[in-house]
Structures are given as C-alpha cells and as structure tokens.
C-alpha cells in the first residue's frame, strides 16, 4: 500500500480539485488553494494549453475514474490519446487554463502533491480492499487445506491488487503518465478478471464441490485469454468491451452454478444454510456494485457514482464470508434470506426497468424514473405477493392450530406414560423430523445442536430429552422460531402435566386415606368380633354364618389393602392348598389340573377373590351334598379367557339345589367378573367321570 501511496503522490498536478460541468463544456474548479495564481472556486475552465500552444479542451471524461467504463475499444483508446495530449501539455512545466471568456491563468505544474490532497476515494478504496485481502488471507490461514479457502484468498488478493491499481489512476487529478496509466489499466484488467473468475470458481466449489482441478485450470485459462484479448484488443466483445466478459458473464454463469448448488443441497440442510448465506452475500454485494457502475455505464451515465461505492459493497461481501464461514448460524438466515431477496429484487427491478425503457423506448434517463416507480407499484408488488403465496410453503407454525388439539389430548391422557407419549407425538407432528430419539438427559432447556440440525427438547418425565433430527424432513434447520415454539409448547405441556398429575395424586391420596381408614376399622374392630362370634358360639349355624361373614370382610380388606395383581401360579397354589386340605379332611380324592402354558398372566384382586369364592362354594357344596368319592378341578386359559371347572362323581343335583342360595351367589360372582357359570350333569362322554356334576366358570382376562 505504501507503493500506491507513493505512486499516487508522485504525480504531477495543479493542486486543483475539479468537478464535471453539467453541460459537459469544460470543467469547473471545485476548490483550489486560495491564491491569486489559481482560479477561484466555481470558475468554469474550458481548456488547458501549453505555452507552446498545444490546446486540449477539458471535459468530464477526464475525470473518469476508470477507463474501463468505456464500452468500446475505440472510446478507450481515444481516452488514452487525450491522456497523451495532456502529457505533452504538462511536460512543458507550465500550463495555461483558459475560461473561454478570455480569462486565463498560467500555473506551474507541481511535481507531486501532499498526502492530504489525495482524494477521499483513494483512501476508501485502499482501505476497503486491504480489509478484503486481510479477510481472504486470514480465512485461508485458518483453513489452509481447503480449496474453497484457497479460492477465497485468491479472490481477495487479486481484488486487492486490482483496487490498488485502480486507486492510483482513479485518484489522479486530471492526468496520469500514460505509460504508467496503460500499465496499471492492463494490470487492473488482469486482476479483475482473476478475481471475478476466482469468485465464480468459489461458487463451483462451495458448499458442494462440483468441479475439479481441471475446471480450475480451464477457467483461469479462459480468464487469461480474455485478458490477452482485451489488452491486445483483438476481438471486441459486444455490449461492453470490458465489463461484458469481466463481470457480466461470470456473474451470469455464477447464477446458473448457484442454482445447481441449490438443487444439490435439497436434502442437506447444513450445506443449504451455508449456501444461502454465501450466495446471498455474493449476489447482494455484486448486485449493488454492478448496479452502481455497470448500469450507469451502459446508459452512458458514467462517472455518476464514485467507484468506492462498489468497492465498499465488495468489502461487505468479504466480511459476510468471513462471518459466515466461521458461524453461518449467526445470522437468522431463514428470516434474512427472504427479506434480503425481496429487497434486492425490488432494487434490481427498478434498474432493470430503467435499462429496458432506455434501450427499448429510447427515452432519456431523466424521464424514466417516474415510469419505473409506477410499474414497481402496480406490477411488481402484487406480482411478488402472488408468487409468495404460491411458492413459500405456508408455515403452520401457528400455535392457534395446535393448541386446542394439544390441550385436549393432554388432559385426556389416561396415564402419565400416555401423556409423555402424546408429547413426543406432538413434537413429531409439528416439526416432522427425520428422526426423534429419546435418551437420558437432565437439561431442561430447549437447544439446537450441530448448527441447527438437531433440536433438543426436554421430555416431560424429567429424566429424558427428545432429540429431533432434521427439521421438516431435513429440508430446513431449526432456527430461533422453532426454539421459541418448542419452549412455549413445553412450558404449556409441563403446566398441564403438573396440574393433571397433582389432581390425580390428590384424588389418589384422598381415596387411599379413606381406604386405609376403612380397612383399619374393619381390621381392628369388626374382624376380631366376628372371629370371636365364630369361635365362641355353640350353634354350628351361627359358627358357619360368622365364618362366612369373616371371609367376606377379609376379602374386602384384601381388596382395600392390595391393589396389585397376582401371578396365576401363586393364586392357583393358594387355592390348591386350601382345597386339598378340605378335601383331605373330608376324605375325598383330588385331581388338580393346571394350565400348561402358565403364560405370564395375572389376576386382579377382584378376579382372584371372586373366583376363589366360587371355588370355595363349589367345593363346600360337594363336601356337603354330593356324597362323592373324588373331585376333579381343572383350569385353562384360552383366547384371553379364564376357564375353571369343578367336577365330582357324586349323586348329582336336582332343581332345588340349582335355584338355591349357594348357586345364586356363585352366579352373582361370575357376573361380577364379566363371565358365565354353568352347571351340567356329567354324562359318560364328559372327562371320564361317570356321574355327578360339573361347574364351569369362564371370565375374560384383561389385556396385560
């Protein structure tokens, strides 16, 4: 940079700051040192001439920052002819400025100028370009192996070099040594081509590598040949000799490549996010810079916008790159993406309309603006709205849609487990992740992981977290909107969960306390008294009645005290012990058959108490009435139904027995179990037992 400063400073000048004249006749002195030797500010100087009489009219083309803005070779060459003329004038050491109205000022040519005379644009250009170079090389230094970093560094450094050249001749007063000027211009072209095409290559290689070393070589070869063509002026490119191939073409190709990259990242949200940021920064800044100097030059409005404007927007691009490469998740991409696009599109649309109208309708640029605005208002905005509705998938992220469903299902949950399941289902419905994994974790915060690829949401049971992977089937990342949504859903669900849990618990506790109280009363007061009645009474009828009453109370206490199921094996063992004891005392043989599978089934307290009572009654009946010799009891589980049959080979029973008290009790119990009970006399065909009765009970088992 020191070199450029030196080069810029060492140019001969007059110490005058020039401004273009509106009607392009001469130049106006914007400011000059307050001496009588120099024309005062505001003076229109029509020409500059040497004492020898060499006459050069002044025009605004002399103030053109960059001769690249000429669209044809002939204009470019003409510019340099005039520079050569000026050189002859300056070489004489003194120049004469004439205002056309006869006034003249002879001025000695200064061989250099002070630092503070360098225009503002010089510093802006150099500094912004330096920033870019720093960023580019910084990124490359941080990630030296990556091809994209290398291309970025190349872009940055070449851009810097091109700007350096530009700044030297762009900051000239009127005139720069033509040989140097030409050299710098050519160098500027070279570097410009290099950086534009390097940027194009960057789009080819990032985020998904779409080319190889051969494409790099090919592109650079093309760039070099374009440069050779430009410098040697072999073939003239239509539209614009310099900007056409330097900027417009690579930009156009870049758009196409960008589209390809977009397609490639369809199912890779991480790459897609990187790409969005990346392309956004490029297109916005190139769009701004392009609009600001390409479009005016196409419509012959050259020089209106100083070149440091595009330079600053390029610097903006590099800054975006830098930030993005390290952490593109920094920007809320989803939101800015759309916003940036629409904003850029609006601006470009105006420029495009301008160009269109100027070229097609051939109206002067000053009159075009109102039409542009009208068209923008009437056509563009409605068009955009319509396209927006059609293309952007409406985001059903609204809570209003989900809330009623959520609340209802949460309140309807039968158990804590179904509540928790409903929560994960809800997450699935709303976010449609590629996958959802429930794993251990204590974090109660909603966070994203892996740059937004994963969302971690705590589970309602307080011990686990749900990991949602891949938002919307992997087509987007989890952003701050999703985090907020998940947070609100979670706090709401938690609240509902706590409330319903609490209510359930309170109910449970209350019921439990009541049960315990009743049970204690029964156990402490009623039971002992019943037992005493039974043991003290002389009458066997009272003894039996008290015994039966005791059984009922005992079963009730059991139901109150124990609410858990018992495995079938245990129930059958308990029954067997009791029945075997009684039958042994009554001198009856016992044949006891258990179900083979013993499939892990359980009986609820209600089931084993009621069925046990039926069994007890049946056995009592046999002992009392049947005058049998043996008893056959079997159990079976078929189709989730429990079967029990009690057979004896006694005398059988008649009508009175079947309608008596004992049997109607058993019928009641069977009905309480949701099952059926039948009595059938044994015939010779049933189970090998010749006579007597069989009582069969069937009731359904609950699903486990």
């Amino acid at each position, binding site marked *: 940079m020191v070199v450029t400063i030196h080069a810029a400073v060492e140019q001969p000048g007059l110490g005058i700051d020039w401004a273009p004249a509106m009607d392009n006749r001469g130049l106006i002195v914007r400011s000059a040192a307050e001496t009588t030797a120099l024309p005062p500010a505001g003076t229109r100087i029509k020409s500059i001439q040497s004492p020898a009489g060499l006459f050069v009219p002044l025009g605004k083309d002399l103030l053109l920052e960059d001769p690249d803005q000429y669209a044809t070779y002939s204009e470019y060459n003409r510019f340099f002819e005039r520079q050569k003329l000026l050189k002859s004038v300056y070489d004489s050491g003194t120049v004469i400025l004439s205002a056309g109205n006869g006034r003249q000022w002879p001025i000695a040519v200064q061989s250099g100028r002070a630092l503070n005379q360098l225009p503002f644009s010089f510093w802006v250009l150099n500094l912004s370009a330096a920033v870019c170079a720093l960023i580019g090389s910084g990124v490359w230094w941080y990630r030296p192996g990556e091809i994209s970093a290398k291309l970025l560094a190349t872009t940055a450094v070449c851009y810097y070099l091109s700007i350096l050249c530009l700044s030297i001749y762009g900051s000239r007063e009127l005139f720069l040594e033509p040989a140097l000027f030409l050299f710098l211009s050519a160098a500027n072209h070279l570097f410009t081509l290099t950086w534009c095409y390097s940027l194009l290559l960057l789009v080819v290689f990032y985020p998904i590598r779409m080319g190889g070393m051969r494409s790099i070589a090919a592109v650079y070869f093309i760039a070099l040949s374009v440069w050779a063509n430009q410098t040697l002026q072999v073939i003239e490119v239509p539209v614009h000799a310099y900007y056409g191939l330097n900027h417009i073409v690579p930009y156009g190709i870049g758009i196409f490549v960008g589209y390809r990259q977009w397609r490639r990242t369809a199912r890779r949200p991480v790459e897609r996010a990187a790409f969005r940021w990346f392309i956004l920064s490029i297109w916005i800044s190139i769009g701004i810079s392009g609009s600001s100097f390409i479009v005016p030059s196409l419509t012959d409005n050259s020089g209106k916008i100083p070149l440091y404007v595009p330079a600053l927007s390029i610097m903006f691009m590099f800054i975006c790159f830098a930030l993005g490469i390290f952490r593109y998740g920094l920007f809320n991409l989803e939101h800015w993406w759309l916003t940036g696009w629409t904003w850029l599109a609006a601006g470009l649309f105006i420029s495009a309309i301008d160009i269109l109208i100027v070229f097609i309708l051939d109206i002067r640029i000053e009159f075009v603006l109102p039409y542009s605005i009208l068209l923008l208002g009437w056509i563009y905005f409605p068009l955009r709205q319509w396209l927006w509705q059609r293309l952007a998938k409406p985001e059903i992220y609204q809570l209003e849609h989900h809330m009623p469903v959520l609340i209802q299902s949460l309140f309807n949950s039968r158990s804590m487990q179904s509540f928790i399941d409903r929560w994960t289902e809800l997450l699935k419905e709303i976010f449609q992740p590629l996958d959802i994994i429930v794993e251990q974790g204590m974090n109660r915060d909603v966070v994203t992981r892996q740059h937004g690829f994963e969302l971690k949401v705590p589970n309602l049971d307080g011990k686990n977290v749900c990991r949602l992977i891949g938002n919307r089937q992997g087509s987007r990342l989890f952003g701050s909107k999703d985090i907020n949504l998940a947070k609100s859903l979670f706090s709401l669900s938690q609240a509902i969960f706590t409330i319903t849990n609490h209510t359930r618990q309170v109910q449970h506790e209350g019921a439990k306390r009541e049960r315990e109280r009743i049970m204690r009363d029964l156990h402490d007061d009623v039971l002992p008294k019943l037992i005493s009645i039974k043991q003290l009474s002389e009458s066997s009828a009272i003894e039996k009645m008290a015994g039966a009453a*005791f059984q009922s109370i005992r079963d009730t206490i059991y139901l109150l005290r124990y609410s858990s199921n018992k495995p079938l094996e*245990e129930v059958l063992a308990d029954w067997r012990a009791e029945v075997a004891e009684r039958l042994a005392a009554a001198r009856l043989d016992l044949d006891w058959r258990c179900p083979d599978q013993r499939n892990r089934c359980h009986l609820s307290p209600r089931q084993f108490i009621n069925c046990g009572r039926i069994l007890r009654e049946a056995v009592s009946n046999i002992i009392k009435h049947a005058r049998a010799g043996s008893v056959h009891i079997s159990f079976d589980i078929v189709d989730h139904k429990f079967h029990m049959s009690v057979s004896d080979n006694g005398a059988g029973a008649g009508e009175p027995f079947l309608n008596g008290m004992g049997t109607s009790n058993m019928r009641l119990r069977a009905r309480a179990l949701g099952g059926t009970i039948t009595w059938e006399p044994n015939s010779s065909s049933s189970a090998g037992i010749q006579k007597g009765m069989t009582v069969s009970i069937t009731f359904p088992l609950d699903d486990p």
Partner: protein
Amino acid sequence: MKHIFLLEDDESTRMWFSALLEKAYGKVEIIPAESIGQAEKVVERYPFSMAILDIYLPDGRGIDYIKRLKNVHPAIFCIMVTAFDDSADIFAALKAGADGYLLKSQDKEKLIQLLQDILKGAPPLSPSVARRIIKHFNDTHPPDTPVKSTTLTQRENEVLVLIAKGMTRNETADMLNIRPGTVAGYIKRIYEKLNITSRAEAALEARRMGLI
C-alpha cells in the same frame, strides 16, 4: 404344670383362645397380658414353656417381643396368632424366631390340631409363606456366617417348592417318598434357619452401622 403366656389385647379372643388351649393341652396355667407393658411385669415371674402372641398389640408388635421372651426363657415355644393372614407379617414373625403361627379364623378343631402339631415339632406352612421363604433364601447370602446353618439343603428346598405349589404335607411326603413326620421336621428346620439367617443379617447390618 404348663405355663402359657397369652399376649392378646382383645378380651373375647382371650376367652375363646384360653378354652382352646385347655382343650388342646389339658390342664394349663394361662397368664394373660394385654400389652407389652403389662407383659414386662409378668414375663420373668413364671416358668413359661409356651407363649401365644398376637401380632398387633396396642403398644407395639408381638413380633418384636419374641426376642425378649426367648432371652428370658430360652426354651419357650412362641406361636404367633393373627386374624388377617398377611403372609408378610407371618414371614416377619418366623424370621424373628417364632416356632409356628395360627390363623384365628380357622375352625376350632383345626386350631387344636395345629396347636398340638406345633408342640410336636410339626409347624404349619402355607404356600404364600413358603414362597416368601424361598425368595428370602434366594436373595440373601450373608458372607460372614458359616455356610451350613444358613442355606437350605436340597431336600429342604424341595419341600418348600412343593408346599409353595399348594401341595399338602401328606402329598409332599408322598412325592418325595418320605414320611409326613420327616416333612414336618424339615419345616421346623427351615424356620430355625430362617431365624438364624435373619439374626445374622441383623447383626451384619448392625455392625455395618457401627452399633455393635
């Protein structure tokens, strides 16, 4: 003259149980107590050979009093009685050293027979208690105590398993080809081992807690 200690707080129960004891054992001296507090006043005064303890007493559990009784009268027979056949309570009583248990609700004749059986060394065992005992011996392996006296022999295990399935004592004897009396002996041994292991556990636990 047999001295029997009857620790039961319900008066009517005491009444019929005393009648039962006389029917079972003939002439006996029954010393009643309504609570542990009352029991303490009389426990050392008589040469008790048997104690009938209710599990739920107003000022404590009968189960916890077994140890005290056995300290004062080492040869005493402790029989727990309970109205509600909660096998957990019974199991706890056996672990504490009870020599047998009775359900108050059983028929009088059955109770008398059981009382005599217990004295003869043939204590009762129901399937649910048998299941608990099996589980207990499967779960506990106290390392510090000598192996022999705290694990069950194979025969004892077989007896337990059959009883847990619901077989009567006679059926068990038939299936194992031994006499019912032998089965009874096994049951008695099992109870003793249960007591030993639970005492051993308690000692281990106490040592671990630094109490002894």
